[in-house]
């Protein structure tokens, strides 16, 4: 079933890809044009998706319960970290992210917070000071 769903999704993507690509035009004499290769790709991609729909493999074991919640929480945490890195500053956002990740990985609050504090400092020194990547250390509101 999973393969069928993936096949259907890929089939829709391939068709949309081919149709979108076929509208691309270049104004001057290029023998290939911007549309040719994407259109050429969409055809085998669509056929392979059909093959996936018609001859699916047995389903993989999908995750359920607590591990699934942990995975969703991790992805949400990563997205939030990416968005908050600039407004909150590196030290605070990394401290929070590492602490929560530690919790998700079933460590205790104290140990996670300690690793968060140590890691955010080490990484800040390594990347900002030693490697010269300009990072905002403190929240925007403070500076």
């Amino acid at each position, binding site marked *: 079933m999973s393969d069928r769903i993936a096949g259907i999704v890929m089939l829709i993507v391939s068709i949309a890809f081919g149709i979108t690509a076929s509208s691309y035009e270049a104004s001057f004499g290029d023998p290939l044009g911007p549309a040719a290769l994407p259109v050429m790709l969409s055809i085998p991609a669509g056929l392979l998706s059909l093959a996936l729909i018609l001859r699916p493999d047995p389903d993989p074991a999908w995750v359920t319960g607590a591990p699934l919640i942990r995975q969703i929480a991790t992805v949400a945490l990563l997205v939030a970290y990416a968005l908050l890195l600039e407004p909150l500053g590196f030290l605070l956002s990394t401290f929070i992210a590492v602490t929560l990740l530690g919790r998700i990985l*079933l460590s205790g609050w104290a140990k996670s917070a300690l690793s968060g504090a140590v890691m955010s400092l080490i990484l800040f020194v390594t990347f900002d000071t030693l490697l*010269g990547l300009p990072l905002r250390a403190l929240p925007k509101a403070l500076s």
Partner: protein
Amino acid sequence: METFALLGQGFAVALTPTNLALALFGCFVGTIIGALPGIGPVNGVAILIPLAFSLGLEPVSALIMLSCIYYGCMYGGRISSIMLNIPGDEPAIMTTLDGYPMARAGKAAEALAISALASFVGATFATVGLTLFAPLLAGAAIYFGPADYFALYVMAFATIGGVTGANPFKTLLAAMIGLMIASVGLDPATGTARFTFGSYHLYDGFNPIVAIVGLFAISEVLFYLETMHKGDREMVPLGRAIPRLRDVMVGGWAHLRGSVIGFICGILPGAGASLGAFMSYVVEKRVSNKNGTFGKGDPKGIVAPEAGNNAASGGALIPMLTLGVPGSGTTAVMLALLISLNVQPGPLLFSREPEMVWGLIASLYIANVVLLIMNIPMIGLFTRMLSLPQWILMPFVVMVSFLGIYSISNSSFDVLVMIAFGVLGFLLRKLDISLVPVILGLLLGSDMENNLRRALSISGGDPLILITSPIAVGLYAVTFLVLAAAFYLSFSNRRSQRAAADGQANPPV
């Protein structure tokens, strides 16, 4: 003789203090990355590429550092196979079969030393092979025209799944996904914006490094979250620190057999180190398993796969450097590095940048010696790294990936793209769709289009040019044969599986 002169120049490049220091650093970090379960060589090299940028290294230095990391990973993978019965990376799976039983029998230090020596023999064999064969292949590849390159890329995509028995439909679909992702952004020849949906962030297309780190490193974290409950890891005690020399020299001819088989597997497109280790083990078992000791801690069962996987990793560098077509996941990542450094691999690399090629090859010789020395007396240090708890290791990997990607363009957008690729990579791996063809498509897509475009410009738009050159025809023939073999194997596998399932009243859930 010319080769030796060039190699001599290479040593002059590799032995400058900076490059030597980077090689040492690479070997050390690589061994750790290889040893830690959960960070394979692909992840390790991909995460460290941005680091090479932020250090502002010269292309040759960056390449030397990452190649040493690559070699180091291959040495390191065996450590957790032997100590924990968990392969540190995919090619090290075969080493668990005899390595762990031997360690359980109180000979952990011997097993580690034997495998270090086997790794050294395999990797050195492959490096010598690289020295001798790569210039020949590069010389031949000069005769390749654009149409031939197009055929070569078609072959690379069609054969990357190899004859491993994985569902060939899925492998091909994976390559298509990669190529489709590669066509996002401005078309280089006409300047048409393709699939950008009006977002200026997408005008440059997807940075392959962002995609690779997401696909491999982030998806690995998601996988770990799924399996973290199953099985506690219990480390075998190391025993005596430095084993006796005669306990180490038990491999004999298994070293050479493993090296030769591994090297050949490495050169073949799409086969790579895992197949090298597997084939070496299978052959060695047939040759030496006279008393039924294989699987119970036979030293030759450690020597063969270790020599095989290290020889294969060296061999895999040959198609990557000479043709610009990587044969494995890790070499695909190295190709991403070269492209990001504005170095175009391929036959011209050898004539245009001899300093880089030969410096790299010389540094591989140095890396091998360094790794052998590091891996016998210092092995205690690496085994201690294995007891690092995952709740420190995983966040660390995530944060370094984040900062590495953030350092490329200082934008959160790239980081979000990386997370999206991580989720995509997780879903694809769950569905048993290999990620290596995706990466290959992503990396080679624009080159493939450019060569097609050049070929058609030469012929004035006549598509017949694609099949008139004998080289191209030969490549298409090989493609066809490999594909036919892959489909045949996959179908016969399926049939036997179905027959087995029918034979049971209650198929296993």
